[in-house]
């Protein structure tokens, strides 16, 4: 256990957080979000909070500012900031310390910055509001922080608006904003989760250095244990709002005592051996594509093929053209040049000219299962639609087939009449898989289908996809930015960088040295679950990410 010390910046004792949910058409439900959590954090130390979504980690992070989202109540225990209990402080007292003694870095800096104001105004706003320093001094400090965080042109960076800088830069700017008023404690709420793996590593290093140099205490919230292992001194593992394990980073990573922590540490346990290449079901040849009204080729001379019943993984950072390739193959964005052969015939570049069979045999699953389903349709209607549309199934026959598909995605009975809102994230993605399968496709394009899911849930989805491939013989074109996912599912890999395929071949070839510089960067940027990884990898890097 970690000792409680009187000089701690933050002490949370036996915290209990509750909320009331109001599901439509049902009586209000009482929820306990966090129960019996105790934390202590000294100056200059970093505490990592880790767990799946719904574990209560963000809720605890915000509780350190005595802030509850929506109707969330901090109903019991103590939150001591610099020795004062802030849980019961009044609104005015809280305003005086928020942004002054404790600041916050949000997950999506792109959404957390006010789009209507220049970055400098926002970065120094707290310092001025709380009269920490005069404007000139605050601006000088902001420039200094921009420089420390490795932002380009630190002198003029603050003159830009949020939409004018990249996601990785915004995340650093948000860190500068949090550090500017010289707080005692900074809450980092998944600051690198939305970033590419190659960008994440730079931001992570910048944040780590900034924490170290300014000597603040920090809470670092993430679902990625490998990431938190790089920055935290102590780690608390949370599940369902309760502490599973709390100890030093070394202890949690190397000698975890709880079964749940061990599962987190050893996640990505799928062992997939690649199949030998067979005849391709899809061949995209010399594809060049651009968006309407632009004169920039998003895809340049891309050639890939997908073997029948196997998986081609397309990997690259955002902006590399992976999703555009999917749009070209599905016909949503007709290619400017090149040809697509599918199941022995040439596909029309434009969706409108494709036959019903072309459409049926080529299905898609999306990253956000939430937005890919009509929220007002039941699971049965969603899965039944392709059955009706492609096969004309009706009545009992259709219902039997729906149940069949539900069994295939391991959801069983009782889901047919549920709405998407009543399902968990993993279940929603399973329903999307069933909907794609219902069309009996030869190829399914999976666009970042596990990116929005917790690691353990994502693993379940990957296992399901592999099982279905073995049973149904369907091929996957699997788009992802996550190399661990690639290793788990691919037979063949295409690495994309700025619209071109820079490395292509069977999995064993692509992932074996010697590497080209970009693949090396990509592979080496995947956080590893060991202490000191960040420093060692930064020391040996050869090139910069395109996102910087």
């Amino acid at each position: 256990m970690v000792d409680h010390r009187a000089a701690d910046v933050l002490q949370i004792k036996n915290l209990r957080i509750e909320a009331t949910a109001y599901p439509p058409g049902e009586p209000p439900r009482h929820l306990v979000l966090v129960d019996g959590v105790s934390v202590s954090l000294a100056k200059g130390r970093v505490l990592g909070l880790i767990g799946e979504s719904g574990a209560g980690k963000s809720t605890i992070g915000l509780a350190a500012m005595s802030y509850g989202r929506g109707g969330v109540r901090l109903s019991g225990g103590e939150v001591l900031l610099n020795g004062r209990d802030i849980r019961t402080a009044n609104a005015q007292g809280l305003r005086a310390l928020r942004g002054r003694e404790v600041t916050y870095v949000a997950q999506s800096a792109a959404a957390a910055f006010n789009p209507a104001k220049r970055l400098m105004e926002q970065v120094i706003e707290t310092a001025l509001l709380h009269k920490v320093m005069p404007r000139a001094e605050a601006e000088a400090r902001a420039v200094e922080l921009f420089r420390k965080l490795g932002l380009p042109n630190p002198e003029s960076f603050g003159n830009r608006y949020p939409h004018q800088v990249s996601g990785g830069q915004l995340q650093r700017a948000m860190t500068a904003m949090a550090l500017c008023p010289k707080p005692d404690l900074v809450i980092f709420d998944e600051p690198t989760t939305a970033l590419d793996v190659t960008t994440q590593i730079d931001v992570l290093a910048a944040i780590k250095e900034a924490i170290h140099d300014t000597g603040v205490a920090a809470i670092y919230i993430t679902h990625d244990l490998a990431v938190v292992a790089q920055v935290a001194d102590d780690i608390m593992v949370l599940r369902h709002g309760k502490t599973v394990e709390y100890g030093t980073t070394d202890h949690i990573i190397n000698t975890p005592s709880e079964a749940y922590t061990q599962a987190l540490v050893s996640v990505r346990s799928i062992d997939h051996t690649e199949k030998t290449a067979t005849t391709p079901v899809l061949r995209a040849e010399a594809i060049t594509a651009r968006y309407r009204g632009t004169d920039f080729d998003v895809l340049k001379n891309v050639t890939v093929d997908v073997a029948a019943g196997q998986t081609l993984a397309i990997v690259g950072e955002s902006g590399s053209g992976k999703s555009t390739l999917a749009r070209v193959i599905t016909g949503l964005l007709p290619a400017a040049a090149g040809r697509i052969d599918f199941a022995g015939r040439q596909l029309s570049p434009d969706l409108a000219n494709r036959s019903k069979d072309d459409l049926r045999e080529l299905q898609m699953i999306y990253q956000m299962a939430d937005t890919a389903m009509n929220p007002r349709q039941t699971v049965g209607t969603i899965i039944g639609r392709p059955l009706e549309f492609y096969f004309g199934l009706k009545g009992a026959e259709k219902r039997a087939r729906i149940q069949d598909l539900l069994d295939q995605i391991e959801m069983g009975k009782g889901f047919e009449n549920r709405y998407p809102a009543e399902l968990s994230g993993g279940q929603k993605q399973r329903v999307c898989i069933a909907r794609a399968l219902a069309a009996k496709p030869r190829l399914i394009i999976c666009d970042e289908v596990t990116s929005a899911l917790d690691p353990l849930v994502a693993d379940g989805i990957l296992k399901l996809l592999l099982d279905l491939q073995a049973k149904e013989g369907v091929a996957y074109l699997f788009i992802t930015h996550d190399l661990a996912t690639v290793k788990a599912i691919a037979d063949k890999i295409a690495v994309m960088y700025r619209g071109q395929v820079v490395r292509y071949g069977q999995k064993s070839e692509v992932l074996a040295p010697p590497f080209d510089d970009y693949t090396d960067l990509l592979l080496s940027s995947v956080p590893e679950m060991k202490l000191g990884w960040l420093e060692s990898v930064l020391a040996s890097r050869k090139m910069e990410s395109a996102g910087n």
Partner: protein
Amino acid sequence: MVIHPILKLVVQRIVLGLILLLAVSFVIFLGVQILPGDAAQAILGQSATPEALANLRSQLGLNEPALVRYFTWLGHALHGDLGKALTNGQDISHDIGQRLGNTLFLAVCAGVIAVPLAITLGLIAARYNGRWPDKLISGVTLATISLPEFVAAYFVIFLLTQVVHLFQPVSMVFPGMSFFAKLHAVALPVIVLVMVVLAHMMRMTRAAILNVMQSAYIETAELKGLSPMQVIWRPALPNAIAPIISVVVINMAYLVVGVVVVEVVFSYNALGQYLVDHVAKRDLPVVQAVGIIFAAVYIGLNILADLIGIISNPRLRHPK
């Protein structure tokens, strides 16, 4: 040469507005043409002899094809000459000029009070969303907008001239009146108009602010320690300005072109009354002229709303 996208959009909007105005002028001209009878008939009355009609028609140029007459009219209109009224032979441009001044005076007086008041009330309602100040403001403004204008007008007249003897029930203004005398004269119609336009603008302000309040950057502001009113003022309002402006401008346009009833009730000599008078007398050139003026005001104000909306968007103002 790289043209700033804002400039491009501004020019685009203005050109579109002019094309639209041209189309509207044609529709107005056409509408007046398809009415039974023509100007000569209207001047001479039902009992006119065919010879007299034919004479007058050739005198007025009515025998020319419609298209030619349209372009002649348009050409004169572009030079500021809207023709002469049939009923009294007065120069229409001159008459309109005088009354347009009165119309704008009333609209500006009402706008100067209504816009800041509506936005302030909207901000307060958003700040206390769902609590009593919100309910009070929403309720009262809903009541004022629900009253037909003439009912509201008579109610205000009764209250402020009979119960409390503050104002005159008619709002006569004439050239040479002092500014303050004019203000005093238009007080009652201004009060009525403020009541009518307040609710729409206030509700849009409230809704736009509440919509923005869902954004992540509002949470950022709260976690910076900003007070609720500071949160509404700094991050919320600048991002909600576009929809608010568009509703404000629509209401301004209404104050210029849609207040006939109020003008009539208070005997206020402005464009609306002028139009109604001449519709009753079938004075087609006047109807045509006032129609085109109203259309121009409406289109102009809407372009203005569009432009402010565009300019308030930092993505367009400062491209990557």
